[in-house]
């Protein structure tokens, strides 16, 4: 019997209605247009684990992150965190208190910090909102402690965010996320706005904080090397669906789904061997008009008849799961 996972994402879907206004639609005889941003997403994250979610832009990674923290209402499905359902009305009161334990770090530290607030006020806000410290002195001490935790100086609290570099701002964003003492932090592309040498600093800080505070991460990134470095398990998304979930080592050593293989093959390598990679043709299709059957079939080298008509299901094999007809039928 394994320990119950901290986060359980259960059959989560998100459909955006992007139709034209009703009158325009009636006059021009247009149909309703629905954009399926995420469909039937299911995964779980164990305590102290880092679950990575990778995919190209438009694959629905950020939509999933936002549904998990509750910034977007899912169309269907549920997120259960530590046994508490995020959609069940019965849990309403408990849930509000519970929010403290989930935090998020956003991609762009230039946009996620209020330029008119001093760093102290930014970090103190969650402490005040959740009543985690009594009195000015206690709040001040706590903010100082948080700033030290992320490698900044408590005196930096008096400055405004524009006085800091990108890497330092991301540290401030992490300090704010940690201010409410969360167990679970959702990081949406935490380092993609940063330079590589600064990225290394932020990633090391995140691992270090995970060890010290026992955090659980959901890490969203399009950078496969970053996900490989950080995550214990990885989900690969394509056009709003998870096409493969596996342990990190397995996924990167033995990718199963043709899309995962293609992604790994497309990353420029540093080894200077001069080996030519075979770039895959095409781009991610328009999510408003997704291909029938398997969404990846127009770009897939292994596609055959069944892929064009029938949508593959995520099939569990051992510790991993993959949705591909060709693998199911033993063709690859």
């Amino acid at each position: 019997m394994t320990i119950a996972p901290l986060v359980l994402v259960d059959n989560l879907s998100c459909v955006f209605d992007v139709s034209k206004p009703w009158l325009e639609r009636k006059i021009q005889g247009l149909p309703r247009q629905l954009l399926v941003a995420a469909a039937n997403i299911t995964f779980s994250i164990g305590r102290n684990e880092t679950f990575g979610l990778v995919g190209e832009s438009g694959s629905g990674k950020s939509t999933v992150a936002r549904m998990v923290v509750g910034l977007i209402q899912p169309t269907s499905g549920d997120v259960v965190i530590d046994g508490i359902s995020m959609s069940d009305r019965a849990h309403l009161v408990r849930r509000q208190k519970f929010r403290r334990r989930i935090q998020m770090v956003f991609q762009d530290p230039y946009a996620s910090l209020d330029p008119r607030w001093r760093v102290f006020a930014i970090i103190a806000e969650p402490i005040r909102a959740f009543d985690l410290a009594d009195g000015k002195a206690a709040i001040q001490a706590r903010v100082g402690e948080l700033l030290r935790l992320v490698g900044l100086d408590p005196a930096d609290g008096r400055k405004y965010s524009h006085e800091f570099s990108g890497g330092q701002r991301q540290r401030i964003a992490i300090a704010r996320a940690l201010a409410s003492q969360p167990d679970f932090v959702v990081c949406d592309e935490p380092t993609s706005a940063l330079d590589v040498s600064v990225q290394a600093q932020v990633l090391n800080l995140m691992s270090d904080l995970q060890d010290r505070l026992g955090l659980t991460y959901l890490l969203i990134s399009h950078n496969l090397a970053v996900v490989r470095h950080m995550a214990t398990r990885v989900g690969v998304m394509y056009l709003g669906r998870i096409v493969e979930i596996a342990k990190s080592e397995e996924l990167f050593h033995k990718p199963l789904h043709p899309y995962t293989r293609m992604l790994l093959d497309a990353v420029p390598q540093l080894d200077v061997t001069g080996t030519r990679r075979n770039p895959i043709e095409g781009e991610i299709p328009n999510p408003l008009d997704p291909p029938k059957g398997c969404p990846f079939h127009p770009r897939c080298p292994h596609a055959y008849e069944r892929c064009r008509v029938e949508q593959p299901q995520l099939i569990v094999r051992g510790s991993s799961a993959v949705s591909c007809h060709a693998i199911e039928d033993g063709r690859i």
Partner: protein
Amino acid sequence: MTDFVLSVRNLRVEFPNRHGTLVAVNDVSFDIARGEVLGVVGETGAGKSLTANAIIGLLEPPGRIANGEVRLDGERIDQLSPEAMRRIRGKRIGMVFQDPLTSLNPLYRIGAQLIETISVHTNYQGAQARRRAIALLNEVGLPAAEERIDNYPHQFSGGMRQRVVVALALAADPELLIADEPTTALDVSVQAQIISLLKRLCRERGTAVMLITHDMGVIAETADRMAVMYAGRIVEIGSVRDVITKPLHPYSVGLMNSIPRLDSDLETLAQIPGSMPRPGSIPSGCAFRSRCQSAFAPCATLRPELMTRGASKVACWLYGDAPASGEAAQ
């Protein structure tokens, strides 16, 4: 002398302001031969893009070239009038920028933009120019070029737009192509397509390329030589293989080790402590010394020049005879 398509010597770019002068690019020298791809890497603010803008004469005032020279095929271009520079840009120097959406005019069909470039810079006119535009679009791998030439930029995906930008840059068969972060805004699968496209076209035409990026993987796959920039200077320049597998400068070493790799399971990434000094607060001596673990006496007072070490050049006292500390004091 004319072996090199582009020769930059002792380039210095300054931004005068009311507190004094900020030196953003200092003493940068490099050459690019015909058909060669030179990769330029460095952090934000290291002066990569400013070097490129200085070469093509697109420095935003008050920025100006304070010293040094830029030669295209042996002919000085840094002192030309804006009018003469305009005739060189697009014709003899092609440019590809980071964001394909901002480099195309959203109000014009891509065909109109291509035909304009072709008829301004080459002898093709009218229907001939249009045929040439279609041929170019075919060459960069745009499907159904004949129909899509009359589409607007917003009707294309990011990767296809960047292909159109590449077609625009190569429209007049330039000798030199400056690509400033050409794949940064694109997804990995599309990035691979654009890189192989750039490589193929430049090999076929013998175009020299200056490829600016912060993605070391892109450089490793595309470039022949690479230059590492730090705080406005080139700190190391050499063949891609040498710099990536055997970096010499402590900054290059730190940079290579801080990249998470797909093929290794390191517990922690090596990190360079601190951050790059901003222009205006660059310390005396070596600009990297406060972050460098091997810094020793001469680093504090004397700025290292590029010194030849094997096939590379590196600006670090570890690899040259530093003058004795007595001399340094003078």
